[in-house]
């Protein structure tokens, strides 16, 4: 099914401003496309046709009058269902919140609205963002647009699949251990995790507070720059949001690769990595060298401990963050039992899926009296070492380049019964979250089976501009973005 308005966010914006197309036309076309394609794809958990068309009509009035609300006026986007939306169901992919309608908008949602964006709906995800395949959604799996028997990655699988399938101009995702970059890589789209603190977390339903960060999922690097510029900025409602000015990311895109020092961490080319992935990433690095970047191998020696540390810290925080789902205030309440304890047990037994329960138990254990020092505190020490690894190499190089995942998208059901294999899928993305750094996944080719491969570019704290510029240089010279999955 061809796209009626085949357009990335940047092009769409231009065409809307010239009134070549209207937001209503584009929104209507996307809603139709969702209606036809999404039953099979499973990217959306909620399609808000009425709200989207009303938003589009309002945007068209502003655009007709020549007074656009902001850089996203009239552009139809979709949100990972982890973002609190006032009056619109927010499930987090969980039975626990199946019927939950929040009373407030997340800060980024407010910012999107203020910039004129049209919100098409809410996108599927692993329950509470815990997973790497979107198979942990309590409602349905999402399929990879490139191969319906493959997963789109996760936890922002709905976001990546929807963007790849042309079911929205761009989407928002969240990344705790790779949840934007890995699905972006699997689906052949651009996904960026900004520096921790760059984008407000207010209204992002917490999984692991010290690691969670929102970011754009887009077709192109330019789109990511445009969308991030709207999302980023200090928010007094989030104590961890950083009060530094937001640069003009779009303007930064012209910076050349020439003269950049690029490090290639040897620990990121692990045993068991697929050759197709290795070759595609190596080719991308070679391209950068050919454009005048200085490429050198570097070492991040504590990489091998990152996954273990992550699964202690993230689960510890999650065990506390998810305590609020107790059946008392909102969401599911199962109170067939006799007393308060029964209500807690029934609600949480039935409201949470197996992966969420597994992580709550892991985290509870890690924080328990007598184990705290051995697990949680030790994990925080490892985290410090991982951060220092990065800080040390960033004294010598401007960027790091590596694969996003060791493999291309795997099959549905392939790893769902093996949590450890699933966790290892995030081995190359997790260290970045532990260190709070910005990183992008940008398409860099296809496997022999025709599945997308992603290049990961990691930068210094708040060096999103450098990352975006380098990614754009690479993207411009290749036609990966032009290839669309056949749907």
């Amino acid at each position: 099914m061809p796209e009626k308005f085949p357009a990335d966010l940047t092009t769409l914006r231009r065409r809307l401003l010239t009134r070549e197309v209207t937001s209503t036309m584009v929104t209507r076309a996307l809603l139709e496309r969702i209606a036809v394609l999404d039953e099979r794809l499973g990217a959306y958990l909620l399609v808000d046709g009425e709200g989207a068309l009303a938003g589009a009509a309002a945007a068209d009035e502003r655009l007709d009058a020549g007074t656009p609300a902001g850089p996203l006026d009239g552009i139809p986007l979709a949100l990972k269902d982890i973002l609190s939306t006032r009056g619109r169901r927010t499930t987090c992919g969980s039975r626990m919140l199946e019927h939950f309608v929040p009373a407030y908008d997340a800060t980024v949602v407010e910012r999107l609205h203020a910039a004129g964006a049209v919100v098409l709906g809410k996108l599927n995800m692993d329950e509470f963002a815990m997973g790497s395949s979107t198979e942990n959604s309590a409602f349905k799996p999402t399929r990879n647009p490139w191969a319906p028997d493959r997963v789109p990655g996760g936890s922002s699988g709905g976001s990546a699949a929807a963007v790849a399938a042309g079911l929205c101009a761009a989407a928002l995702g969240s990344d705790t251990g790779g949840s934007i970059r890995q699905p972006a890589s699997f689906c052949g789209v651009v996904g960026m995790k900004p520096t921790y603190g760059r984008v407000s977390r207010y209204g992002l339903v917490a999984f692991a507070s010290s690691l969670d960060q929102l970011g754009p999922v887009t077709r192109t690097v330019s789109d990511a720059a445009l969308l991030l510029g709207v999302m980023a900025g200090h928010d007094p409602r989030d104590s961890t949001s950083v009060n530094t000015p937001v640069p003009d990311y779009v303007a930064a895109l012209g910076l050349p690769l020439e003269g950049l020092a690029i490090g290639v961490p040897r620990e990121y080319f692990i045993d068991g990595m697929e050759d197709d992935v290795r070759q595609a990433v190596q080719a991308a690095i070679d391209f950068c060298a050919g454009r005048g970047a200085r490429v050198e191998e570097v070492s991040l020696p504590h990489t091998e401990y990152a996954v273990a540390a992550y699964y202690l810290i993230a689960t510890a925080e999650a065990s506390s963050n998810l305590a609020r789902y107790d059946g008392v205030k909102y969401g599911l309440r199962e109170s067939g039992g006799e007393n308060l304890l029964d209500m807690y047990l029934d609600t949480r037994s039935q409201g949470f899926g197996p992966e969420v329960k597994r992580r709550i138990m892991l985290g509870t254990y890690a924080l328990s009296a007598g184990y705290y020092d051995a697990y949680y505190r030790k994990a925080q020490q490892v985290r410090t070492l991982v951060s220092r690894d990065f800080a040390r190499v960033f004294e010598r190089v401007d960027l790091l380049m590596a694969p996003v995942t060791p493999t291309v998208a795997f099959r549905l059901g392939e790893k769902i019964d093996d949590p450890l294999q699933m966790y290892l899928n995030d081995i190359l993305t997790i260290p970045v979250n532990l260190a709070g750094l910005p990183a992008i996944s940008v398409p860099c080719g296809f496997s022999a089976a025709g599945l997308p491969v992603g290049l990961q570019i990691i930068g210094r704290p708040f060096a999103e501009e450098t990352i975006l510029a380098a990614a754009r240089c690479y993207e411009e010279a290749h036609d990966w973005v032009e290839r669309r999955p056949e749907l």
Partner: protein
Amino acid sequence: MDYEVVIGLEVHAQMRTATKIFCSCSTSFGDEPNRNTCPVCTGQPGALPVLNRRVVEFAIRAGLATGCRINSGNVFARKNYFYPDLPKGYQISQYELPVCEHGHLDIDAGEGETRRVGITRIHMEEDAGKLVHPDDRSGVSYVDYNRACVPLLEIVSEPDMRSAAEAVAYLKALRDIVMYLGICDGNMEEGSFRCDANVSIRPRGQEAFGTRTELKNMNSFRNVQRAVEFEVERQIDVVESGGAVVQETRLWDVDKGITVTMRGKEEAHDYRYFPDPDLLPVVIDDAWIDAVRRSLPELPRARCGRFMATYGLAADAAGILTGSRALADYYEAAVERFSRPVPVANWMISELLRHLNDDNIGIEDCPVTPDGLGSLLKLVDDGTISGKIAKKIFAAMYRERRNDPGAMVEARGLRQLADGGELEGIVDTVLAEHPAEADSYRGGNRKVFGFLVGQVMRRTKGTANPGMANDILRARLEG
């Protein structure tokens, strides 16, 4: 055997900030349930806490007033447990790095002795909501989150108190301080100043502590006193009968006057404290501490000492009058109007406080102003009225909420009768009307003198200058 009692107290003082500790909802008490709530203080998914700077300032005040070290690095931690009044499933508190440590408080230990009670730590935390169980057998409970996220200071003492009386003295001193500092209203009944007590006993002379129990649910000084006394007796009974005290949490049952088991050690929570990743460490620098130090008011003990030195008050009187900042302020205002401090103090203690106590109201609600009281005492001082009349006028001022004693004296015709000629005439009339009593006096019955004075007073509606009336009467009878 002779036992020594060991008591440590944990006090929770609700801060009098306008807004909550992690959101901008009002802290006001007694509003319609769940009126003062928002996504943050009801623990909505995705909501995040932002620290109220004022709470840190209040904590610094409390720390400075109790001689604590103020820690520059402050970390908030999550205390994890489930309860319906706790919206997030964890309480944001402080654990490893509290705001204040290593302080002390000096209390009166009786007979002019002071005892220094160590303060282990003071930390900031949020309060929980309140469960409401209606009396209708519906089996339904409600939860009111107005109080959730209201700032608290937890003030933990060392186990330095040796009797229930000392525990109460410590609590009173601490309550005075937080009220003087203006950081807590000290209301124990509404729960804005509440305490748990750790109580143990040990044979006198033994160094090691006995097993302690933690007492909860004591909402007045009296209840603290009774609960601790009961618990000490209970523990002694247990030990004397060959048993061992069990470490547990016990509730004070005010109606039965006993403590009962709430939960044992094995049911004790593992709170799984860890640093709250939603809040950054708070750095308190010396400039901030100095600024707070400069803004501290005079504290109760210092003020008490000054009242004794400057106004010549006895320790008891100075102690009573500095019992609250408002009372001490009242006293000093009254002294400003009428500069004889001792009579002012006596009047306040014997008359004013008696009226307030009878009506169970605080000095803040006293209908007689310091000016009014000062003016009244001036009238006594200059002989316009007698002390006895003054008490009558004071009662009227209090009752009628008036502060113009001069006008009231005139309107009631109570100006003191000190005219010798007029008084002589009245005395003569009284003696003429009561010849039998006059003879009886002259016959040696001195007791009847009081009766005759009373008659003079009756005829003058009490306005006769008592000294003059006595002198004239005596002169007439003995002359």
